[in-house]
């Protein structure tokens, strides 16, 4: 019997392994941002002839694996090679042109001149030192018909995926259908373009540093927890006071089990306070509406075995989930707020 069950599961999971469906995987993992047909949404459009006809499959695979640290596009580290391959095949179904081969020839241009060219011809869109336009792609909450925001070039994920030749081709040809026009047509010489390629390549060090700063929160615990020296009720009152003192609006206080069990039978030793600062909330949501997932702010107070414990989510740990560098300062600020509230209430 056991062996049978085992074999059953084995065959089940093996078949899942052997035939990943690119269309389904794309629908699940990519379409929320890039659109069902890859035509864009959050992030740059993928189903764009001028893009697909100028990048190799390696570029696509590496982009999926590395993502774009701090620029919303997640790193899909846990997909199997077969799954990544299936997604790439699906993406390729949007173009019938031959797939460009990856060419890893190193281009040796003059970085100093490249820097000048970049400041004059690229920085207005790609930002100082290639940090990328503010927002990403056709970001959340931006109108679809607005121009695509220039991606970050000073980015470890992008630089790991792009070869020098891919950079040169993109800069030379541009991407028809996007604000990225041919720089050859715009008047740059082939030498200028090589120089700017080398300048973009020189971002590698600062891009790696940024990635490291972003990763520093990896080891943050998922929750901020403090023990209260007071009883449950007193702790809750202290928190209410602290919330008002910090200019937050207390929305309501509930038993944690509210809605889970019939009214009246909730565990009275588990309380949750909901509160908000609408101005702050509005700013954060305008930047990235996904943060609403952890709103309104909540603090839980639980009495167990005679001990009263207060806890909240840890916004620093969560900033990693969003992979949106522009949101990080908000997460840091929220972290400070939660800590202050918890400290005030347990003083």
């Amino acid at each position, binding site marked *: 019997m056991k062996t049978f069950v085992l074999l059953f*599961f084995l065959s089940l999971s093996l078949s899942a392994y052997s035939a990943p469906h690119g269309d389904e995987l794309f629908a699940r993992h990519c379409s929320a941002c890039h659109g069902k047909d890859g035509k864009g949404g959050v992030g740059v459009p993928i189903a764009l002839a001028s893009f697909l006809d100028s990048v190799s499959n390696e570029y696509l695979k590496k982009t999926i694996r590395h993502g774009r640290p701090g620029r919303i596009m997640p790193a899909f580290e846990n997909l199997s090679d077969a799954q990544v391959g299936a997604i790439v095949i699906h993406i390729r179904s949007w173009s019938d042109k031959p797939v460009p081969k990856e060419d890893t020839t190193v281009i040796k241009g003059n970085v100093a001149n490249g820097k000048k060219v970049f400041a004059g011809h690229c920085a207005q869109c790609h930002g100082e030192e290639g940090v990328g336009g503010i927002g990403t792609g056709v970001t959340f909450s931006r109108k679809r018909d607005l121009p695509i925001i220039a991606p970050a070039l000073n980015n470890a994920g992008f630089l790991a995926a792009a070869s020098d030749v891919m950079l040169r081709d993109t800069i030379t040809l541009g991407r028809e259908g996007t604000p990225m026009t041919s720089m050859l047509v715009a008047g740059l010489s082939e030498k200028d373009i090589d120089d700017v390629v080398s300048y973009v390549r020189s971002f590698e060090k600062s891009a790696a540093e940024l990635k490291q700063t972003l990763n520093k929160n990896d080891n943050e615990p998922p929750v901020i927890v403090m023990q209260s020296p007071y009883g449950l009720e007193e702790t809750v009152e202290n928190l209410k006071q602290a919330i008002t003192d910090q200019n937050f609006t207390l929305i309501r206080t509930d038993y944690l089990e509210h809605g889970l069990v019939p009214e009246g039978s909730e565990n009275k030793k588990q309380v949750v306070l909901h509160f908000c600062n609408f101005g702050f909330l509005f700013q954060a949501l305008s930047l990235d509406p996904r943060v609403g997932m952890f709103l309104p702010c909540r603090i839980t107070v639980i009495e167990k075995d005679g001990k009263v414990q207060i806890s909240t989510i840890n916004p620093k740990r969560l900033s990693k989930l969003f992979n949106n560098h522009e949101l990080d300062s908000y997460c840091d600020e929220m972290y400070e707020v939660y800590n202050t509230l918890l400290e005030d209430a347990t003083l």
Partner: protein
Amino acid sequence: MKILNKYFLVLVMALISSPVLAGDLLMVRTQQSFPEAMLALQTSVKEHGYEVTRVQRIDIGLTGMGYKTDKYRVVFVGKPSEIQYLINKYPVLAAYMPPQISIFAEHGETVLVTANPLIYAEMIDEEADKVLFRRWESDVYSVFDDVRDADE
């Protein structure tokens, strides 16, 4: 025997749950209007045996304070017995329970976002309980598939 069972379970888990799918955030975008998507979400949640324990209206508070915003709700979802069990056993999870799915309108479309339930597994140490989060993960994927499929 017990040991054998345990290994068996671990093996099966390793096979079924891997490859662990990426992304600490799960998202879906649908062409449906907000009310249609909300209905699709709630229907699928119930079909999967979970309950919507509360719907928090974020937009109302914002609008009330003078901030213009489109429809935005946070939906709390769980099986009461599981949530109670988890909170009692692991107070550290309380801040995240019941799990929240946010749903918001965006230019005529609707977007749903939630944290991958596997992130809760790292907060506890008993393997036997972590299995719960794997099931939640696969159920969220399935619920989101339903919402997306409702497009067709």
